[in-house]
C-alpha cells in the first residue's frame, strides 16, 4: 500500500470516530500545551532576570557577607562604613564604590503615604549602578558626610505622594523623620511584577541613624579594569577577611550571578516541563489504550484487509499512522494553545512568557514520538492478527 493511501485510511478512521478521536487527542493537547506554556514562562522569567542583571554591567562586583550559592542562607552583615573606605583604598578610587543599607519604611507627604524601600546610599550610586535622575539633583558627598535629611524618590513614589505637584523641594516624612526631596529618578518600569521605581534613596549616614545601626548590607564596586575583575574581587575579599576574621565574604560578578540565577531558573523550568511532560505521558497512554480498542473493534476489518492482500506491515503501518496522526494533530493543536496561552499570560499578567522555537520543536517531536511509541504495540498486534481468526471475530 502506498504511504499516501495509508495516511488517507488513517485520517478516515479518525474521522469515523470523531468524538473518540477528539477526546483521545485532548490528553495530548493538554500535555503539549502545558509543556509549551510552562517552558515559555520559565524561559521568559529567566530572560527577564538575566536582562536585569546584565543591565548592571559586566564590570560590577557585589561584595556581600556569606557565600553566593544556591541554598545558602544570607548572613548578617558585619560591614561598616570603615570597611567601605578600606574597599575604596583597595580599588584605588572611592567614587567606584557604592553601599546600601535598606529597609522597608512608610513615607508620608501630607495625607498621602506609601510603603516603600528606603535605601541608605553613598553619592556614588548613580555612577556605580548607572541610574539617571529625571529631575532635581542626586545626593552629594556633603549630604552623606553630614547625614543631611534629603531624599531622592523613585518615580512611583513621587507619583503616589505628589500626584499633582512637583515633588522636588517638597517635604516627606520617612519613618517619623522629615526629609527634603531633592531629586526624582527616571522611571525604570516593572519587571517580574516588581515595580523598580518603588524606592527612596537617602544618605547612608542618615539611614544608619534612622535604623539605629552602624552596618551596611552590601558593597558594590564598578571595577576599573574588566579583565582583572576576579583578581580585584579576591583582593577585596582578602582585605575584608583581614578586618573581620571568622566571617566569610564573597565578591561576585554579574557572570556569577547569572550563573547562579540560570541554575535556579533552569531547575525551575525543568521541573515545570517535567510536570507538564507527565500529562503528555498520560495522554500517550490514552492514545495507546484507544488504539488497542480500535484494533479490537476493527478486527474483522483487519481480517478482510488481510484476505484481500494486505501484508502484516500494511496493517501495522495503517494503525501506527493512525496513532501518529492522532498525536500529531493533538500536538499541533496543543502547540497553538500553548503559544496562545503564553501570549495571553505575557499580555495580561506580570509573568513574562517567551515562546522558544526549541520548545515548540520539542513538544511536536515528543507528541509524534508518543504516537509512535504508544502506537507500536497496538499496530504490531493488528499486523500479527491471524486473518482466519480476525474474519471470524464479532
Amino acid at each position, binding site marked *: 500500500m502506498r504511504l499516501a493511501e495509508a495516511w488517507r485510511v488513517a485520517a478516515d478512521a479518525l474521522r469515523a470516530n470523531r468524538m473518540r478521536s477528539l477526546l483521545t487527542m485532548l490528553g495530548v493537547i493538554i500535555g503539549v500545551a502545558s509543556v509549551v506554556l510552562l517552558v515559555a514562562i520559565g524561559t521568559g522569567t529567566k530572560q527577564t532576570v538575566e536582562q536585569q542583571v546584565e543591565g548592571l554591567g559586566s564590570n560590577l562586583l557585589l561584595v556581600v557577607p556569606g557565600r553566593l550559592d544556591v541554598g545558602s542562607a544570607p548572613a548578617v552583615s558585619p560591614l561598616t562604613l570603615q570597611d567601605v573606605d578600606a574597599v575604596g583604598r583597595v580599588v584605588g578610587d572611592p567614587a567606584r564604590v557604592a553601599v546600601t543599607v535598606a529597609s522597608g519604611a512608610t513615607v508620608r507627604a501630607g495625607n498621602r503615604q506609601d510603603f516603600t524601600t528606603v535605601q541608605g546610599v553613598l553619592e556614588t550610586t548613580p555612577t556605580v549602578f548607572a541610574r539617571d535622575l529625571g529631575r532635581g539633583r542626586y545626593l552629594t558627598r556633603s549630604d552623606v558626610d553630614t547625614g543631611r535629611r534629603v531624599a531622592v524618590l523613585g518615580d512611583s513614589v513621587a507619583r503616589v505622594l505628589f500626584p499633582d505637584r512637583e515633588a522636588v523641594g517638597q517635604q516627606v516624612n520617612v519613618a517619623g523623620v522629615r526629609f527634603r526631596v531633592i531629586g526624582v529618578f527616571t522611571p525604570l518600569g516593572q519587571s517580574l511584577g516588581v515595580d523598580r521605581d518603588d524606592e527612596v534613596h537617602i544618605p547612608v549616614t542618615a539611614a544608619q541613624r534612622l535604623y539605629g545601626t552602624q552596618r551596611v548590607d552590601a558593597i558594590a564596586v564598578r571595577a576599573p579594569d574588566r579583565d582583572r575583575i576576579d583578581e580585584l574581587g579576591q583582593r577585596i575579599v582578602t582585605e575584608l577577611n583581614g578586618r573581620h576574621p571568622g566571617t566569610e565574604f564573597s565578591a561576585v560578578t554579574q557572570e556569577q550571578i547569572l550563573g547562579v540565577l540560570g541554575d535556579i531558573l533552569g531547575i525551575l523550568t525543568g521541573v515545570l516541563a517535567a510536570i507538564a511532560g507527565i500529562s503528555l505521558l498520560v495522554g500517550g497512554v490514552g492514545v495507546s489504550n484507544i488504539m488497542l480498542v480500535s484494533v479490537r473493534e476493527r478486527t474483522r476489518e483487519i481480517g478482510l*484487509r*488481510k*484476505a484481500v*492482500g*494486505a*501484508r502484516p*506491515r*500494511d496493517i501495522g503501518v495503517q494503525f501506527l499512522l493512525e496513532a501518529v496522526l492522532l498525536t500529531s494533530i493533538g500536538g499541533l493543536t496543543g502547540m497553538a494553545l500553548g503559544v496562545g496561552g503564553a501570549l495571553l499570560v505575557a499580555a495580561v499578567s506580570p509573568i513574562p512568557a517567551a515562546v522558544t522555537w526549541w520548545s515548540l520543536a520539542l513538544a511536536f517531536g515528543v507528541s509524534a514520538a508518543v504516537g509512535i511509541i504508544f502506537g507500536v504495540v497496538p499496530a504490531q498486534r493488528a499486523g500479527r492478527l491471524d486473518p482466519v481468526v480476525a474474519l471470524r471475530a464479532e
Partner: protein
Amino acid sequence: MSPAIEAVDVSRTYQLDGVSVPALRGVSLTVAAGDYVALIGPSGSGKSTLMHLLGGLDRPTGGRLVIGGREVGALSAPELARLRNETIGFVFQAFHLLPRTTAVDNVALPLVYRGVGARQRRERAAAMLGRVGLGHRLDHRPNQLSGGEQQRVAIARALVTDPTVLLADEPTGNLDSTTGAAVLELLERLNAESGVALVMVTHDAEVAARARRRITMRDGIVVADTAQDPLTGSAGSDEPGMGGLGTARAGGLGTARAGGLGTAGASGPGVAGAGGGGS
C-alpha cells in the same frame, strides 16, 4: 495447463491448550481453472479449514499445497498476502464490506494493496460493479444497500483483481431464497464468462446440486469427490434457464477436469488422494 490449486495429502492440526486437534487429516484435491466446485459436509467436517487453506489465509501443518504454482508452506506472510491478492477472491457469508466506505471504494480495496493508483482503481472498480449490475450504486455505502446488493459488491471486490479462484463461503447464507438465487446465478455467470474457478462452501443441497463437481467432507477428510452431470444437477433446479447455462459449460468442464487430474496424476498422490476420497 497447470491447476489453479493443488493439494496433496494436506493436513491442518490446531493446538488448543496443548492438545492437538486435527481439523484436516490428509486431503488431496485439484482445482482446475474454470472449475465449479461445491464443497459440502456437516459442521466440523473441516470444510471451512479447507477453504482457508485453499485461499492462502492459513498454512497446512502437513502435506503440500500449491496455489497458483507456488508452494504455500514456503511462503512468508507478506508473500502469502501477495498470493491472495493476485490469485484468490473471497466472498463471505457476512459480506465483510467496510462500513462507511462506498461500494466503489470497497471494491477497489484489493487494488490498494496492489499499488494501483486511485484513478485506475476507481475505473476498474466501477467497471466491475457494472458487471455485477450495480453500475448505478457506485457511491452508496453498505448501509444504503440491500443484502443482495451488498453481496454483489463483495463479489465485485473478489473479482476486481482478476483472480484465478473465487472462494465463496456460504455466499447465499445470509440472503432470502430469491436474492440468494440471483447471487448464485451471478456467480455462475461470472464463472462461465471469465473462467475463474468457483469453489463454494454450502449447506444447501439445491445449491450444491448446481455445481459441476461436488466434494463432500467428513471428519477432516474428503469422502466423496464426484463430477455431476450438469443436466441431472439442473433437473432439480427451479430455473430451467440455469440448466441451459450449465449445459453450455459442460464441455469446458470436462476439459478442465481432465487436465487437472492429468497433472495431479503425474505427481502421483493427487490422483490417489482424490480416488481415496471417492472410495
